[in-house]
């Protein structure tokens, strides 16, 4: 499973003939991603290592059934590329490009919301479901298939933390870099919701940084909705006020958006915050150990409320109890593709 990208992902690379676009198209293909098309206006009809190139995204979608786009065009062309992908029927757009004006992004965000299209980025490394597919620029080999969902505003800091997780043999369900800009398509809450609902994900790592209030909003959401264990990290404790720290969105302004505020918000909802990047993996290890212990203890108690994975694992034991007690609750615990099936089954059984 994993979130946003999976084995059904069919990638079109916008800007495939550029330096970054061609390099990463190859890298993605090598990783196992179904890179089905490339787009560069004027280069339609040519190809790159067997990947057909089209003049427009609409044509690429029509001919190859691409459903996900990865954008590697210069910042000045990125906004147009996003609109083109959205209007061509692409469902997940990953915009790697850095330097997109924020006021353009305000329009893009609100337009895509109306269209119901998922945008990740801009100014992000993309998204990877290890062992399955990647839509982005992250080095694939540092990842390992597993059950920890990672979401971050950063690129290389995410690699660092993932590298530490993998070194401890803790695999990842999906890793998402949501981007370092002030206005981005997908925020922490969107990812937390998906991870909570994803049966493969057992624990979540949230990597935040100074600027804005995304982390505070994420904390409030975790309290309300997330039952899976979450571990946090916040970069920028030593950052001075009113200075943009590389990322356009990483700025403490008017005294708000500081690291201590964000750490406090996480800790207030029971999310431990690692003091160093390396410590994230230690905290995750502990959380997972506690989770497995709890699960083992609960296997006999058939409690219907907790997350999906539990009911799936404990299925054989609690099967009878669940069937008798509450089919509705069982369907809520299962996940999208499965939900429909089990709902149907439940109904047909009733009939």
């Amino acid at each position: 499973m994993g979130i946003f990208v999976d084995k059904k992902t069919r990638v079109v690379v916008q800007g495939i003939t550029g330096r970054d676009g061609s390099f990463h198209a190859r890298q993605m293909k090598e990783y196992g991603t179904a890179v089905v098309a490339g787009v560069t206006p004027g280069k339609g009809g040519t190809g790159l290592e067997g990947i057909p190139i089209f003049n427009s995204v609409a044509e690429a979608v029509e001919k190859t059934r691409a459903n996900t786009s990865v954008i590697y065009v210069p910042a000045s062309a990125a906004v147009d590329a996003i609109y083109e992908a959205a209007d061509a029927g692409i469902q997940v757009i990953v915009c790697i490009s850095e330097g997109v004006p924020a006021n353009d992004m305000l329009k893009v965000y609100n337009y895509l919301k109306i269209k119901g299209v998922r945008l990740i980025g801009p100014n992000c490394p993309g998204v990877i479901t290890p062992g399955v597919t990647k839509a982005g620029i992250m080095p694939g080999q540092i990842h390992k298939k597993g059950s920890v969902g990672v979401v971050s505003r950063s690129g290389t800091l995410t690699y660092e933390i993932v590298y530490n997780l993998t070194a401890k043999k803790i695999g990842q369900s999906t890793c998402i870099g949501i981007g370092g800009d002030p206005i981005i398509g997908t925020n922490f809450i969107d990812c937390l919701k998906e991870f909570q609902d994803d049966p493969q994900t057992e624990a979540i790592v949230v990597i935040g940084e100074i600027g804005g209030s995304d982390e505070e909003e994420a904390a409030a959401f975790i309290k309300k909705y997330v039952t899976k264990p979450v571990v946090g990290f916040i970069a920028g404790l030593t950052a001075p006020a009113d200075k943009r720290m590389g990322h356009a969105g990483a700025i403490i302004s008017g005294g708000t958006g500081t690291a201590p505020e964000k750490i406090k918000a996480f800790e207030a909802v029971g999310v431990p915050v690692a003091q160093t990047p390396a410590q994230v993996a230690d905290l995750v290890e502990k959380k997972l150990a506690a989770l497995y212990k709890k699960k083992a203890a609960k296997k006999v108690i058939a409690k219907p409320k907790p997350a999906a994975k539990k009911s799936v694992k404990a299925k054989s034991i609690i099967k009878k109890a669940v069937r008798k007690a509450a089919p509705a609750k069982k369907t809520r615990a299962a996940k999208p593709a499965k939900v429909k099936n089990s709902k149907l089954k439940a109904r047909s059984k009733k009939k």
Partner: protein
Amino acid sequence: MKIHEYQAREIFASFGIPVPKGKIAFSADEARNLAAEIGRPVMVKAQVHVGGRGKAGGIKYCATPDEAYRNAENIIGMNIKGLIVRKVLVTEATEISHEAYVGIIVDRSAKKPVIMVSAEGGIDIEEVAAKTPEKIHKLHVDPILGIKSYQARQLAYRIYSDPETAKQAAGIIMKLYRCFMEADASLVEINPLVTTPSGNVVALDAKVNLDDNGLYRHPDFEKLRDVAPQEESENEAREAGLSFVGLSGNIGCVVNGAGLAMATMDLVKHYGGEPANFLDIGGSSNPDKVVTAMRIILRDPNVKAILFNIFGGITRCDDVAHGIVKAVSEFRPSVPIVVRLTGTNEAEGRAILAKAQIQSAETMVEVVTKAIALAGVA
């Protein structure tokens, strides 16, 4: 990018927002001449990139050109919050019967521009927001539709009861919104927006922060950049495609990626050192960037050791290693250097460093603790 009031008011004027007559002066003599030219009492206003100029004595009323000369003489060279005043704006003094506030910023949570107005202007708006938030009226604009006249009117009537004043203010709000979007601003602010005894509504102050990402669309704005002496390194870094922010510590940091760079600084502090800077060499692995990075850091006399923390993705470790070797042979630094390379072409990179006898470290923690130990500061 921050710009000065005298530049911001020109942008306002180009969108049709009324501003008082005025010009920039680089000397007391020029200030006197401008005051004489205006022929009426003037204000002399320090032009620096910080707020609180009035409180610091950087804004003065001058009844005569001679008074303008004396005040300008005092203000030019003045230190306001660490910045030296090098020029003053001389504007026609305006009689004030009421002061209001109008500002527009991006609401990052709502993903919309938000217009804020208050009947209490001319004061620190952040203080008003903290102490009496009910005195600030906010309105979110749908960025796709743009601002509608009724929205501007609605806001204007929140702060004015006189229809004629409200009408003028609504017009200014419409223009200010256009200015915000079209100039690619991240903030526009009129504080105060004044009503004169004769009933005119005028922008007495002008503040505009520009989105760096939007500058490519406005080549004219590039010349508005005014680099203070302490920001010269930041500027040099920007021109070389690096992000640099100088700090007061002693461990120089060269990192790829903004998040990792911040985390590296935090780790330096965590282990008892003080970071000397934030520096992100970005995603490309051009060895020349590393040379520029080293030149900028070595300029800081507080630096006692330099660490490199590179996680190769797009960035190739061997390219960075080549850059480090090149920089070391060029500058022959007297401070110790320790390098951590992980990721793409890590082995090649380490071999290059070993050959040049440059110290390396395996992990982020190791590079930080080694650098602190070598600096002898903890």
